[in-house]
Every structure is written in structure tokens, then in C-alpha cells.
């Protein structure tokens, strides 16, 4: 039930709704809980409502951490 996948905002309407693209499939979402969303943002949508925006800077930071952990190699 708390399943929610990231999608990209492709359009915004004046009534607080808009369209989100999930890897090629477009669905309608309500943006009332997430003011300030822009077309092109990645968002998490749950039960028809966008609840969070993805922070690309944080994502890149985590990716860097992955690379560092990989470099450490096997534990034994």
C-alpha cells in the first residue's frame, strides 16, 4: 500500500493536478500536497497524490558513496 514509484512531471494544470510519466506510461496526479512542483521534477506519487520531490543532489551523493563502498572490496 505504501508502494510509490518515482515518475517525472510532464505537465501541470491550474487546478492542482498534472501528468506524471513512469517510464513511458502517463498518469494523472494531484499536486496539492506538494506546492512548487515544476515540469521536469521527479516526484513520488502515492494513491494519486504526489507526496515528495526527488533531490538529485542527494541522489548523486549516495551514488558516490556506493562507488566508495565498492572500492573497499570483499570483507575477508
Amino acid at each position, binding site marked *: *500500500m*505504501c*508502494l510509490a514509484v518515482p515518475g517525472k512531471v510532464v505537465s501541470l494544470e491550474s487546478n492542482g493536478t498534472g501528468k506524471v510519466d513512469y*517510464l513511458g506510461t502517463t498518469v494523472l496526479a494531484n499536486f496539492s*500536497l506538494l506546492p512548487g512542483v515544476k515540469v521536469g521534477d521527479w516526484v513520488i506519487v502515492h*494513491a*494519486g497524490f504526489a*507526496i515528495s520531490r*526527488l533531490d538529485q543532489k542527494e541522489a548523486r551523493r549516495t551514488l558516490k558513496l556506493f562507488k566508495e*563502498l565498492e572500492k573497499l572490496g570483499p570483507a575477508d
Partner: protein
Amino acid sequence: MTPRKPSKEPFSDWRSGSTVKGILEAIRRETRGLDRPLRIMEVCGTHTMTLYRSGLKPLLREAGVVMISGPGCPVCITPDYYHEAIIDLVTSNNNILIATFGDLTRVPTARGSLQTTVPSAGSEIRIVYSPEEALELAQKNPGKEVIFFGAGFETTIPAIAFTVKRAASENLKNFSLLAALWLIPPALKAILQSGQVAIDGFIYPGHVSVIIGQQAYRFVAEEFRTPGAIAGFEPADVLLGILSVVRQIKQGRPEVANEYRRVVQVEGNPVALALMAEMLEPYHADWRGLGHIKNSGLRLKPCWQALDAVRKFDLALQPGKSLQSSCRCGEVLKGLLEPVDCPLFGRVCNPDHPLGPCMVSYEGACLIEYKYSSGAKKK
């Protein structure tokens, strides 16, 4: 018109084998030399799914970490009497339309399930994906009473609160809500206070945390000295959470870590939190398996009672009526029992013939175990 290129998911690295291996090795490095495996509870059923689907459970066990499934499945923890009240309503009244999430229609009770029940004349049961769809059904069916039966945690609650507020502002007279709304932090407290299950740390649900933020779990670290980390839902997300918890345990420094920073803000979602506070009030709620927990449920405030199905239809939401079944879902939800150790798992209870909600919901530990564990383990 040229077809729009689909957006590439930017997080494929979170599933890559080399990333997963890198974090697993880091966990192994931390657990080396410990005299017993660490027991970490993944609170959320969607995390359980990630752990099974990507085969991480046995790999973690090898790395010295035993994962225990928690109560994070709203369909599973909703007591039978909610379903029974709705079944009563739709079988004894004409022109009622029940709109609900798909999983909820299949939960077996002593009175059958919403799926097997035969509604009264003009009444029906419809599956919806979002609460707003239920509201649209009310607009399109002015001759029917539309009741949205919604179960959910903090992730889903704001969407439901928004919809009720919209129904009020549109003065929609034929719409109401039967709310089975549950709060995660009080349930964690109940689990910790009961002391029934030994837990070294928690993986906190990422999308509940999107709404409630990081501070909501502070009591776990401060009062109960138990480590925890908020985690996302890709394999590498869950592993990063586990790595953080393992490090906290080793250093003896429990905290609330956020390993899902690309999605979860420290303060949560303030718009959603304000809406919840405006529309809903806490009450002492019953959870399947966990029992009565202080301030663990939300219901509509009295000023919205025209939209509250419990008040509007005088629903009897009380325990006691339900028959005792031999399903052990309650113990599974508390982390006391592994699904395979339920004597009914597999042959008697399976996805085609579920005997309890844990075998119905996509986040139910029994269904997940059945779907993703090897056939050999099925009885």
C-alpha cells in the same frame, strides 16, 4: 506527432549487483567478530518485498543480520470488525456503493469477504486506486450513498484527508469515509514496550517518513536506546539502512539516521501534516495482533461528522463479534512468527485461498514469503 521518449529512471544504480555487493561486504565487515546475529525489524511490508524479491534475506543472514518483518501492512493490521461492519452495511441496505482498495476486498472474515458478499439491491462494491476516485463515484452516482473504505498509514492518510476536505467544500452529501488510519510511531512504541520480540534495530518505512519526517522516531533512540534508519525501497536503499543500523549498534550510539535523503526531508511534508492536523484527531485504536494501542489511530474530527461513515450509518466498530480463526497473522505482524512456521502456510492457506490478511495483501509477509521463497519450502 513523434512519440515522447520515456524518461529514463535515474536510479537503476540502486539495483546494480556491484552496488549491492559493495554494501553487503561493508555490513559483513561490521558484523565480523560479533558473537550472535543482529536482529533488525523492517517495519514496512514494501521493505519485506524488496528483501525477498531481490534475494537479500539469505545473503544478509550469511552476513550476520536476521531481518524480522514488522506490522507495516495496513490491510493486515485492520481488525476484522471493520470488514464485518462494511459487509453488514452493504448487505442490509439498498443503493450503497462501497469504494475501496483492491486488497481490502479479499480479506477473509467470519462473514466472508467483500469480494464474496452479495450486496443488497442497487448496492455494489467498487475497487479504486485513489480516494479521489471514490469521490468522483459519488459525483457520478447522486442516487447512491458512496462510502470510501480506506486503510492506510501516514503515507496514505493525507490523500484521504484531502479528499474528505474536498467533499466538504463541494458540499457532497452522498459521500462518507470509513477510515482505518494507523500511525507507525505508536505501534513501534507498543512493540518495544511489550518486550516480546528481541530487536536490535529498526528499518523505518521510507514513504511514511516522507510525511512524518525524521523526528517522529526520536523516542526509539532516546527512550529505548534502539538504533534505526529511514530507508528507501530499492535493494541498495534497504542495505544502506541496514549498514547504518549495524554501525550504530557496534558503536553503541543509537540515532535516527536518514538513508533516504533524496526523498525524505527532516521535517517531513509540512502541507500534508497540516492537513492531517486540520481534519483528523488521534484515538486509542485496535491493531490486529498488536491489540489496543494508545493514540495509534486517526479519525475525523467531530466537526466533519457528516462525512464520517461511522457516525452517518451508526456502524458498530467493536471487537468481540468475530470468530476466532486459526490464522496466526497477529503473531506474524509482531515479528514473533515466520510465515513458514504457521501450520496453515502453503497448502491450506495460499494466495488462491487465503485464510488471513497476511496472505491477501501485497505487503503481507505470508503472501510475500509464498511468492518469492522457493517451492521446496512450501508445505
